């Protein structure tokens, strides 16, 4: 184990990763499995075909006790319309209209559960405390683990341990006791597949993970496959595809802005940067996030510059890899908005070679969320 991994924070599942032969890397200060012996492509395919179990305990889990009005001053979501044990995907916006982080917010009986990216957990906490001050009580769930079970077999597997989860639909949550552990389960994830995220006490995480892994349908999945899965699903990585320099509208996430803030009888929006962001619905931004595909097998990676056939530089790739399910390289990029329509042909400069690429609709692989 190298120095940065041995110095990194261990999640509650560290020993399990080692026992299952994980190759560990340091990620956002945590020792995390990038892959297991099966390898990234096999883990990716297993998730789409059966069920993958991910340790995502490195992510920040907050409990926020505050009013709807206060939370609506942080995020562009329609908090008033968020029912109990419903979950919403949103963003913490900045005064300049940029994105601090993308988040999942679940309304609990009292307060909200918020999951933020590992790399920005401290920034998000500071931001929320600063913005809301005395109007909110935020506690960090240091004693919680987070597991994700994703794939077409995940419901059958989890229902065996906990029959009531069968009643959950996409973006619904519930509190359940699973093998004696108090779990907050949501039917959501980061792969585009049907699946669940399970927040539970750290001390119970290993036992539940091993119980799930005992099913012949379930395999452990590392961060490498997590990245290829989410890219195929068209889902952004905070700090890479979205960030402080990117507004939700540029990122194609304008749909996160509640309808009530737009149009004739608009309610006044109070989330940071609202005026700038709402303005972008009127005067379209100069660049937009798009999907990008290439023929062959050579990945188009983050940082790769994009050109027209005439040699004009028109964009840059933010993330990319080979998509095992798509069967071709998949990427996300920001391009001049006039070239953002699917089918637009572009050239990617990879080292000293010019490769053909094409703007693609997202997702590359259809979502299979359980909506009804």
């Amino acid at each position: 184990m190298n120095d940065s991994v041995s110095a990194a924070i261990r999640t509650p599942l560290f020993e399990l990763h080692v026992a299952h032969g994980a190759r560990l890397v340091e990620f956002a200060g945590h020792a995390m499995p990038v892959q297991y012996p099966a390898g990234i492509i096999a883990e990716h395919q297993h998730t789409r075909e059966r069920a993958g179990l991910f340790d995502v305990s490195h992510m920040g889990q907050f409990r926020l006790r505050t009013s709807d009005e206060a939370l609506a001053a942080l995020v562009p979501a329609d908090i008033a319309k968020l029912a109990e044990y419903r979950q919403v995907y949103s963003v913490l916006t900045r005064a300049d209209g940029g994105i601090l982080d993308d988040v999942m917010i679940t309304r609990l009986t009292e307060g909200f559960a918020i999951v933020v990216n590992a790399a920005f957990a401290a920034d998000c906490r500071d931001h929320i405390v600063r913005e809301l001050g005395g109007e909110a009580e935020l506690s960090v769930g240091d004693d919680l683990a987070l597991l994700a079970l994703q794939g077409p077999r995940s419901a059958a597997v989890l229902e065996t341990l906990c029959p009531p989860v069968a009643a959950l639909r996409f973006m619904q949550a519930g509190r359940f006791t699973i093998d004696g552990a108090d779990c907050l389960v949501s039917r959501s994830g980061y792969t585009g597949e049907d699946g669940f995220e399970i927040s539970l006490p750290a001390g119970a995480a290993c036992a539940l993970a091993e119980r799930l892994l005992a099913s012949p349908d379930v395999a452990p999945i590392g961060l490498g496959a997590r990245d290829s899965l989410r890219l195929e699903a068209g889902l952004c990585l905070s700090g890479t595809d979205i960030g402080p320099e990117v507004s939700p509208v540029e990122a194609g996430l304008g749909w996160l802005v509640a309808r009530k803030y737009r149009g004739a009888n608009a309610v006044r929006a109070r989330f940071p940067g609202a005026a700038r962001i709402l303005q972008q619905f009127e005067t379209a931004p100069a660049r937009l996030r798009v999907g990008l595909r290439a023929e062959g097998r050579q990945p188009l990676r983050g940082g790769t510059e994009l050109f027209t056939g005439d040699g004009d530089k028109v964009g840059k790739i933010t993330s990319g890899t080979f998509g095992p399910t798509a069967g071709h390289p998949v990427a996300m990029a920001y391009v001049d908005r006039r070239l953002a329509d699917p089918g637009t042909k572009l050239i990617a400069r990879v080292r000293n070679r010019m490769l053909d690429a094409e703007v693609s609709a997202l997702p590359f692989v259809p979502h299979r969320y359980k909506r009804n």
Partner: protein
Amino acid sequence: MSMLRYTTEHEWLRAEDDGGITVGISDYAQEQLGDIVFVELPEPGSRIEKGTNVVIIESVKTVGEVAMPFDGKVVAVNERLVDEPEIVNAEPFAGGWLVQLEADGDPGLDACMDEAAYAAFIADL
């Protein structure tokens, strides 16, 4: 009998009876790279200086560069890798060979590690 020699960059070199040198990457290297999805091969016949990249191997997560071990010429490339790059993972010493080279002068294989020395080298990594 051809014995394999190894570089510190985890390439193996094998002297052939016709004077050519076959090059591939070691099992350690393919494992470090992970699932290989693309191999960029040079043009047969091209002249390459020692130290310049002769083959680029792309895995899902990373890009691996294979440097030319001596001044010389590319005699042949493993065309199979165009459609089956994953063969480098499965058979790094057999079906996953990369290129066959011809050195301008002495290829310097004696200065490279033999099997035992390479095993000791990777044990220390």
